[in-house]
């Protein structure tokens, strides 16, 4: 069907998107699956990360090489293309700085937003964060220093100094997957820690958690800080991969996509979030490879794709509420001790019967 299907190229592009979306899905899972905070504004923190990386890198490069043009003008973009790959140290430095700042700034915005939103219940929280996401997009659409509707382009790839573009992409996918591994490890550590069990207590019954002496608002604010920070990192990774950002990359549908991953994979389970992200990004990548070969269709394939995702969510919620990888109880040392005791008593009981 497809004579020149580049398997490795496909895997590299899928791996990059998988890494970015899996980080987002894990962060959403921390907020929704573990703490029960319906974050419908995930895209805002993702966008903050991406725009932070974009603006930091283009303005720094232009300032270092003393170019007077603004980055959103044609001269600015040409200058960025000229100087972008000139210095490995600068490119890597910008990349590292963006990642750190992306985490901190997106996290702080999330933390600050808890001040108004902790006053409202889970349903209102979703609306307020959704509104915040839309607001951010409208701001970016109209704010000229960040390129307004055209966005910023010419973001220097961290490996732009490597002449071979294929090798560059392969190195980058390793970096992204490395960040995914770190995020997954971190999220698993949180889930299996006493703090993780506090989160589950808050999810299952806020009032009970409060009565057990847990500071519920502070717990929620902490989770929103961590989750938003992770989303910010994913945004930074996206910006350097795409090498351009524009406001229409951050529509509410993106948030919905991440929700679909978390629900499909199973809420309350970090590995489930990764599985969900893998499936949905795989289908998306396949579609982007296939769609151009379809020619003109009566209905745009993208619409069909979204309709299927929408109905899939409803069906999973109705018929498979646990998702593909259902949540399992946490193996604490105490729980393991109880389990082994139960096992022993069962074995002992059957042995006693024989004797």
């Amino acid at each position, binding site marked *: 069907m497809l004579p020149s299907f580049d398997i490795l190229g496909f895997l590299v592009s899928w791996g990059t998107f998988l890494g970015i979306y899996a980080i987002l899905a894990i962060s959403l899972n921390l907020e929704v699956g573990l703490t029960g905070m*319906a974050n419908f504004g995930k895209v805002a923190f993702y966008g903050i990360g991406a725009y932070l990386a974009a603006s930091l890198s283009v303005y720094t490069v232009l300032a270092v090489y003393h170019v007077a043009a603004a980055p959103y003008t044609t001269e600015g973009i040409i200058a960025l293309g000229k100087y972008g790959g000139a210095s490995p140290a600068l490119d890597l430095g910008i990349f590292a700085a963006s990642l750190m700042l992306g985490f901190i700034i997106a996290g702080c915005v999330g933390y600050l937003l808890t001040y108004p939103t*902790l*006053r409202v*219940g889970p349903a*209102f929280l979703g609306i307020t964060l959704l509104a915040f996401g839309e*607001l951010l997009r409208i701001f970016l659409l109209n704010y000229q220093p960040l390129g307004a509707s055209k966005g910023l382009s010419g973001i220097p790839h961290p490996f732009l100094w490597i002449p071979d573009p294929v090798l560059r992409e392969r190195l980058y996918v390793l970096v992204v997957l490395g960040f995914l591994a770190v995020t997954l490890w971190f999220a698993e550590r949180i889930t299996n820690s006493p703090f993780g069990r506090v989160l589950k207590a808050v999810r299952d019954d806020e009032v009970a958690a409060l009565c057990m002496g847990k500071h519920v608002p502070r717990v929620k604010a902490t989770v929103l800080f961590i989750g938003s920070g992770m989303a910010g990192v994913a945004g930074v990774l996206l910006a350097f991969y795409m090498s351009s950002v524009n406001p229409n990359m951050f529509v509410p549908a993106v948030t*919905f996509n991440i929700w679909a991953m978390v629900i499909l994979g199973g809420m309350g389970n970090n590995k489930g979030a990764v599985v969900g992200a893998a499936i949905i990004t795989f289908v998306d990548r396949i579609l982007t490879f296939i769609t151009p070969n379809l020619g003109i269709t009566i209905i745009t394939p993208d619409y069909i794709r*979204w*309709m299927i995702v929408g109905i899939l969510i409803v069906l999973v919620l*109705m018929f498979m509420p646990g998702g593909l990888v259902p949540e399992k109880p946490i193996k604490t040392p105490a729980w393991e001790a109880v389990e082994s005791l139960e096992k022993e008593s069962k074995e002992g009981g059957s042995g006693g019967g024989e004797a």
Partner: protein
Amino acid sequence: MVNMDAYQVLTAVHIALIYAVLAVPLTLSYKTTKIINFVHINFITYGAYAAVLLYTFLGIDNVFVAIAAAFIIGGIMGVIDNVAVFEPLSRRGANVVILMIASMGLWIFYKYLMYSVLDVLSRVAKANLVSVLLRFETLPRVVVGGIPITSAFLTAAITAAALALMLYFILEKTAVGKAIRAIADNPTLAEISGIPRSRVVNVMWFMAGGMAAVGGVLWAIFAIATPEVGDTLILQVFAIAVIGGLTSLSRTALGAFIIAFAENLGMAFLNQVFGVPTSFKPFITFSTLLIVIIAFPPLGAGGGLPYRFLRKRR
């Protein structure tokens, strides 16, 4: 200058009336079922497109026919959602967040279903259906005290008044309305007292969906109809419903006026005095929303901890 101000006030009132028609049903459905319903966005869009398609394919330019058609389409959508998704889910004990996500799934499904249908229909009709200007002139233009009142304004005012009367009559004077209010107060108790809950909730969804769709028609003849019309209004509609605390219909209607005036007159003021570009209008809506949440956090089940346990003011 004076005339100009009167015109601005009139526009603000016009928008406020439409917002009220859009936001009151959201409050009604949340109050009764505790579902934050994202399909509300689709009710608006489908309502607007009921008018567009009637006009394009049948040439009907009577606004009241369009309103009736939109009411029926929106109502049927509301009932289908409830029967197919919300009722089975809540019967299984799904919490607020799960119901909200399910409605979000339906929102995306309906939205792209609309896009797909329009793809096919615009090929059939060989016309642009993606952004349509509808200017129905069923009602005459009138001039009151030197201020010209458009046909769209008159339609909005009459429809909003009729819907308000209908809602008041149904909720206060009929048995169904009493049942709806009982379910909103305490669903379990209502069911125990012999109220056929699912049937009553279906009636409520029909009303809520229908009203929102009518709001869509009113918006389409005032501004523009696009497949994104509901999505562009979502911020305002949710902000208004939150001002109403998602419990009080009359406070929601008041919220519609607050948001519409803040958006239009407040923006005009900021624009003239401080030179703020008008594209920053949504910020006013969001700041109003935040101020309301900070100053009057919703109490009771809608509130977060520890605000849930605050004593009622006043």
